[in-house]
């Protein structure tokens, strides 16, 4: 048990946490009856993925992906050692996750708008009640 912990969990701690957060999110998306709670689950789910991406770009002891001006000018002058790639975090996951965050915000906005309309039409946000009321509907399509 201890060796498993040392070999499988500790070096990949962030990834274990991400999986657990993701499971919490996914569970509430599927199991919760309230539409807003579903959306909260969806947001948790998406946030877990952000954690995955950001974790995989981490370098031990590295700083933010912004190059020091002095070092940058030195490297332009031909000093190849001026920028140490191991000391700068991987910028690509940050870029990708900026996109994913924006997508998440956009989706959440649209989802909330839909919730408002559903509440206006059916007077409830509980999924089973909404489905019941839909069955009773005879409006034209």
């Amino acid at each position, binding site marked *: 048990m201890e060796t498993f912990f040392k070999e499988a969990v500790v070096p*990949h701690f962030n*990834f274990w946490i991400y999986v657990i957060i993701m499971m919490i999110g*996914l569970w509430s998306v599927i199991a919760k009856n309230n539409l807003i709670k579903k959306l909260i689950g969806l947001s948790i789910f998406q946030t877990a993925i952000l954690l995955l991406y950001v974790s995989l770009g981490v370098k031990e002891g590295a700083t933010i992906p912004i*190059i020091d001006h002095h070092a940058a000018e030195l*490297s332009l002058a031909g000093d190849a050692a001026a920028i140490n790639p191991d000391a700068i975090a991987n910028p690509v996951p940050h870029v990708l996750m900026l996109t994913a965050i924006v997508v998440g915000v*956009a989706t959440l906005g649209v989802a909330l708008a839909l919730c408002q309309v559903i509440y206006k039409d059916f007077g409830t946000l509980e999924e089973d009640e909404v489905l019941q009321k839909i069955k009773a509907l005879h409006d034209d399509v």
Partner: protein
Amino acid sequence: MKAKIFASIAVAITGAVLLYAVTDFPNFGDPRSPANAGVEGGSPSASLYYIENTYRDTKVPNLVTAILADYRGYDTLFETVVIFTAGMAIFAILRVLRNENAPSAPSPDPEASNRTIDGDHHRIIVGITCRIAVPLVQIFALYVVAHGHHSPGGGFQGGVMLGASFILIALSGSLRDALARFSEASYIRLASIGILIYAGVAFLPLVFGRNFVDYGALKGLLGTDGEEMARSHGIFGVELGVAFTVMSIMFAIFANLSTRGRLKGGL
């Protein structure tokens, strides 16, 4: 209950598959991991290339900004389009237009919608504070947009702050105050202008026979020394476009959601 059992099974399977893969991962924080340093047999690692050459290529020290708006600028164009789409979709879903003024759900307090910052002495402290704060927020937001080349920031972050400044007006006074300064017609127009700026700056190189998003082609147009500076300016132009779109759509989302699409009354 059935849903919960089903959810538990589905989640358990998903989690098990993901954890099954986790042990195969490179160690957390390893600078030699494939994501950080590439693998043998593939192209040289893009990540290392960015770290070593971005400043040479674009004169932008902030790698995230440079990759976002130049190397992967095509992605970011569609990211902006996603924001714009969200605004349009919320409008399409929620907006109640004048021809169906619903008598069913009148605003609980008709007076509330007509209050302005000046008219309501209960809110005077909040109102005055926000009046002072809003310009400061906006100036800082513009700084964030413009300084994205050198520090964390850029169009999305600055745009959200600009949007927040208008939301602050709406929260401290009433939505009417905010809409008087930033009406519906103008925020839709500004959101389109934002994308137009982005797509336009990205499109211009085509006129010079270069590829889409290749800002280096704008060297002559901008009168810069080299292609690097042209890229740097191109990135700035693009960020500005992003900021416009994000600002407008953030405010639009707030205005529509807080009034259930009526743009009257509100919080």
